[in-house]
């Protein structure tokens, strides 16, 4: 994996971020040494981001669950090889987003209709879920564009970090973000005017 740029910032926010990274490094170390509690803290801390990113790319609750779960299982399998000087989240998010893109592409090819997944999603109660006109508009984008949107706006990566995560030129990331925003703006425009 390409090295990710360190998060920038100064003052209290930077000190908080540094403290958080230190705590996370300890959790990874403890998980590597066999502490299930430490791994559960990592899981609970990162589940929402992983699941939401997968959901934004897949737009299917069951598929998002599968992708996020598989990503964590992949993380378990690779935990011993993980360099804990690096942040855990980008490592996980890279697995999630790449798997979600692959799954969304193959699903589009199969044009699969999975009633179980649709029913699962419909049956899941959630307060103010990600299911409004914004996510409907996201559906019109391809999975690669949705992945970039998820990484930028959901997980708060910079375009440079996204480029490193997805092994893409930074210009490609910027152009995908531009196209996605333009497309969303067009679809949401009528409502604003």
């Amino acid at each position, binding site marked *: 994996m390409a090295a990710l740029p360190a998060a920038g910032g100064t003052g209290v926010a930077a000190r908080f971020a540094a403290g958080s990274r230190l705590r996370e490094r300890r959790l990874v170390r403890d998980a590597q*040494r066999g502490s299930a509690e430490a791994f559960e803290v990592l899981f609970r801390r990162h589940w929402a981001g992983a699941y939401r990113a997968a959901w*934004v790319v897949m737009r299917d609750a069951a598929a998002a669950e599968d992708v996020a779960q598989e990503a964590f299982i992949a993380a378990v399998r690779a935990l011993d090889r993980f360099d804990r000087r690096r942040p855990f989240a980008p490592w996980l998010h890279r697995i999630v987003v790449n798997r979600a893109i*692959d*799954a969304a592409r193959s699903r589009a090819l199969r044009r699969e209709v999975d009633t179980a997944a649709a029913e699962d999603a419909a049956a899941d109660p959630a307060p103010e879920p990600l299911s409004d006109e*914004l996510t409907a508009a996201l559906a019109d984008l391809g999975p690669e564009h949705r992945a970039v949107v998820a990484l930028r*706006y959901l997980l708060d990566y910079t375009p440079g970090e996204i480029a490193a995560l997805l092994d893409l030129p930074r210009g490609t990331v910027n152009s995908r973000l*531009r196209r996605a925003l333009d497309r969303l703006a067009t679809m*949401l425009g009528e409502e*604003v005017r």
Partner: protein
Amino acid sequence: MRGDPAVREAERRLRRLPDRPAPGEADAADRAWRVVEAAYSERPPRAARRRAGWRLALAAAIVAVGLAGALTPAGAKVGEWIGDRLSTDSETGVTAFAGLPKGGEVLAVSDGGAWVVYPDGALHRVGSFSEAGWSPHGWHLVGVRERRLEAVTPTGTVKWTRARPRAPHQPAWSRGEGYRVAYLEEGTLRVVAGDGTDDRLVRRRVARVTPAWRTGYVLTYTTAAGKIETLNVDSRRRVWARRVADRPAALAWTNDGERLVALSTSGLSVYDRRGRRILSRRLSGTRALALHPSGLRAAVTVAGRGGTRVLALPLTAAGPPRPLVTGLGRVDGIAWSPDGRRLLVASRDTDQWLLIGPGRHVRPLSGVSGELGAGAGFPRVAGWCCSGR
């Protein structure tokens, strides 16, 4: 990039994405954690992983010392010391199968034959069978060995054998007192009495789907033309026949004989005893079926891009399926425990049997191939018996 209000509005809304949960997020977290926790708990402890490397080095040393021992009297002393070191890390003797709950025995079939697995972890090999199934009360098993159909006791005593000109397959022992066994042989359906006598042809041109007994003498099967037929095998009277769009891959009657469940690769249908369809569910990628002893729900495996899911489906109304476990690789058999409290899932890729209990708690039994001995292969789950014993 456009600088108009619509772009700013789109960006403003996107920046609110982190504040809002996705559908199903919390429930999915609990389900996923059970699976991830199981995967984490299966990691060998770090010390053991280091020890594995140390053991490899030690094994090389043993070879060297063994040679030295053969050549010099002093080598015997060193070899003894190494033997002590290795024995301190030996296995505890607790088998993976010892995690099975009480209340029945599991029938497992592997490349090395068929085995009855007892809840205390004990195993009994019952024959070199490629397929096998329980009799209704679990007093016998029927198995296929090359061109033979055999009935054996759970301890492996052969009760009868029928040699056939072609290989029989997909045997199914009848309900009730178990007076009949149905099986397929090169596109034909045959029935033999429970004592191994009176073997006769019942129907030609049938599909390769295990027949399902509704009672001790009423049998349902799939024809090569894709129809589901139900027949009284004694009177040879056809009870009903129904043409279906998707050829079933599995058939099963509920224990009360009131509902037939037919699983195809595109979904599941439920029929009443007269063959009228009372429920239909579309589910792409369905593979295996296990009816709950109550007959009120079924477990099915569904293969998809994200791996195999095991779902629980209600059979009395069109309620939503409940995912029991997701993200599995190949699944080689599922079976409900006789009391219906647990579902056993054979997960080949992880070499585990997964016990899914109340609250969808998943308990893995790991390293199950190793329990059968070298070369026996992965044990498929062929049945879990028996509520009537």
